[in-house]
């Protein structure tokens, strides 16, 4: 019981860490669509170069952890969202290598090609992650512990909306990251992008938040029923508050505030997601207790996780500390 709870928290944390960390570096890739100047692109890529691989590893930890600790959830979610998952993986593969190969390309044409792969891969990966989120929220049809729906069950207006929302949300993350880590004309443009992206992202947050309770009466009861509303009402209030801090930070030309606010929005949305789902892991019917691996598995892997995850976290924090400061043109990270 307690082990299941611990593991649910660990995996929820891994997914959140992934969204917060890889979110901004996917966002930097998405921004390639509007930032076309070669030198700016080099700066953008160099700003995430030392950290992006570590960011993406949380995705492996989340996926591997789900298989080991909640095998039922893993075995139901992936077939149900099959095309979206496969497309996301292929996009991430493409994006990952184009990241490195753009520096090694011998010709301008080669570099343009890899840059194109970088922006397309980043955008598609973000879009697919939104599809997966939406597909999970709207529920998965399961019979006898096996996905029992069709091919395109996941493809609805809601999932597409979630997909587009995540693309804009990640782009906002990326922009705010660049405000923090760059300077000069690029930083100026990012401030302008950030304002537009923040308005659009907030709009999506509102629409998705209002739509979600309509998907499932349980969600509706949770959000608007009494006394649940005592727990849920702070979430939208905090979102608005963060919006005000964001606006102030942007107009006062703070470097770091917008990024922290963008991250805070994601944390709040994630908390809202948790409020809706708890204790479900796959709506409408599978709870974390249903999906949990036996205690012998949970205890076995926990030993390693207790030692290694804090070490990895400390190390990641240290790496971010070392790489703090502005990234300038022509400056390499090693």
């Amino acid at each position, binding site marked *: 019981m307690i082990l299941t709870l611990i593991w649910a928290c660990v995996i929820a944390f891994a997914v959140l860490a992934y969204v917060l960390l890889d979110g901004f570096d996917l966002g930097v890739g998405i921004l390639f669509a509007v930032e076309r100047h070669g030198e700016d692109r080099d700066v953008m890529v160099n700003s995430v170069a030392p950290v992006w691989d570590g960011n993406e590893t949380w995705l492996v*930890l989340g996926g591997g952890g789900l*298989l080991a600790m909640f095998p039922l959830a893993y*075995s139901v979610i992936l077939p149900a969202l099959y095309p979206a998952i496969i497309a996301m993986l292929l996009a991430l593969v493409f994006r990952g290598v184009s990241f490195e190969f753009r520096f090694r390309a011998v010709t301008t044409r080669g570099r343009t090609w890899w840059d194109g792969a970088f922006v397309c891969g980043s955008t598609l990966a973000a879009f697919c992650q939104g599809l997966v989120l939406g597909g999970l929220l709207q529920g998965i049809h399961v019979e006898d512990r096996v996905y029992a729906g069709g091919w395109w069950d996941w493809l609805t207006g809601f999932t597409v909306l979630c997909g587009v929302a995540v693309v804009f949300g990640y782009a906002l993350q990326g922009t705010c990251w660049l405000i923090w880590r760059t300077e000069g004309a690029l930083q100026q443009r990012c401030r302008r992008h950030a304002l537009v992206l923040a308005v659009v992202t907030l709009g999506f947050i509102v629409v998705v938040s209002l739509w979600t309770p309509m998907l499932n009466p349980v969600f509706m009861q949770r959000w608007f029923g009494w006394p649940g509303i005592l727990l849920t009402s702070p979430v939208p209030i905090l979102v608005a508050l963060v919006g005000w801090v964001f606006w102030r930070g942007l107009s006062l030309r703070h470097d770091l505030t917008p990024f922290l606010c963008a991250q805070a929005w994601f944390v709040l949305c994630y908390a809202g997601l948790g409020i809706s789902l708890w204790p479900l892991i796959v709506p409408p019917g599978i709870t974390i207790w249903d999906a949990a691996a036996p205690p012998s598995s949970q205890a076995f892997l926990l030993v390693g996780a207790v030692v290694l995850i804090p070490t990895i976290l400390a190390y990641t924090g240290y790496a971010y500390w070392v790489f703090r400061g502005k990234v300038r043109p022509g400056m390499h990270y090693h």
Partner: protein
Amino acid sequence: MSGADAVLVARAQFAFTIGFHIVLPAFTIGLASYLAVLEALWLATGRQVYLDVFQYWLKAFAIVFAMGVVSGVVMAYQFGTNWARFSDKAGAVVGPLMGYEVLTAFFLEAGFLGIMLFGRERVGRMVHFAATMLVAIGTLISATWILAANSWMQTPQGYTLTPDGRFVPADWWQIIFNPSFPYRLVHMVIACYLSVAFVVGAVGAYHLRRDAQSQAARLMFSMAMWMALVVAPIQVLAGDQHGLNTLRYQPAKVAALEGDWDTRPGTPLILFGMPNMEEERTDWAVEVPHLGALVLTHSWDGSIKGLKDFPPQDRPPSPVVFWAFRVMVGLGFLMAAVGLWAAYLRMGGRLYASRWLQRVALAMAPSGFIALLSGWTVTEVGRQPFTVYGVLRTADSVSPVGLPGVAGSLAGFVVVYLIVFGAGFLFLLRVVRRPPTVGESGLPPGVPIRSAGITPIVALDDGRMP
């Protein structure tokens, strides 16, 4: 019928993604140990050539490691997309073992890889050597976890079954140290070492052909030929022991790889032929009487079970296993022969002079990897028609995803992998085509590489270190 086809395509997809992936960690495992040996020799002797060769292969290592990370991300999701029922039933056993592999790899990337790749001039010699050693040991630990998971699927034990057919781990010690695990681990690690030895040997031969005096090329070639002489025969012995273990626990696999249908005293060894699953015989068989009994039972009149002793629905597809086994064994003996030939030339002082040996070494560059993939084909196809041997059938392991979906995603993987890993392979060729030089430089600065991980050591250059 479409269900059976979907299973086949799902198997093809797994074979394709894992086959692409396994080559990269195998390369990393072998190369990491080779780099550790080179650095140890440099520290012990102070000879520049060891450092040059170390720096030369470090660049290849960075590229191969990066590609391995990319294909590894896909593997974390393959079990769920195409093998959902397997994941649900066996996830509680196989998942934690793979979880440990992920954590080990993660830790390794975070901690020591960056120091190994970029830190040589920034940390002390011994610290750097310690990092190289830890990377080498870490790759072996990773391999241990994955092979424990795979071996458990071959020879499962230490579990109980729930009424609905899910595996519940009862004794982790028994699960990890299952009967086939030690043999598979030894056989695989040696295979990694041999594969890399033949790549290094081929690169050495390539540069010797252009500059016979190159010290670095001579060192690579010489070390590779020593490996072929000493390790290839050890691998033959390890393979023999592994085979005996398989005979004990998975007799149907052995019958399939031997192409043997009948149980009879003094089992012959079929050298070549074409197993025929429908007619239950091996066509055009070329046999050596009693040799099969000698090899597998170490007695003249011993017998092994033929395929007919197993119900038709429990038989692995013999033709694939039979031929993959022959490719593996043939290449293994060929490698040992190259080692002997090189030793003979070395005694006559002509190791670096023989053009023919260089040509053969060059042609055998991929031999280790081909043998390794063939070996995995034997062990995985030979486990069929089960995923968890004897307990969970492959047909009961697949996802409820129809043929078009599995085929479509397979096509996607093929296209993307060929572009991405094709490009990676070209970059690798570019690195090894350049001759090694005296005072070989390390990795080029200013070019991001994924294998740098998140190691802050790389920031030392900018004087930004606290």
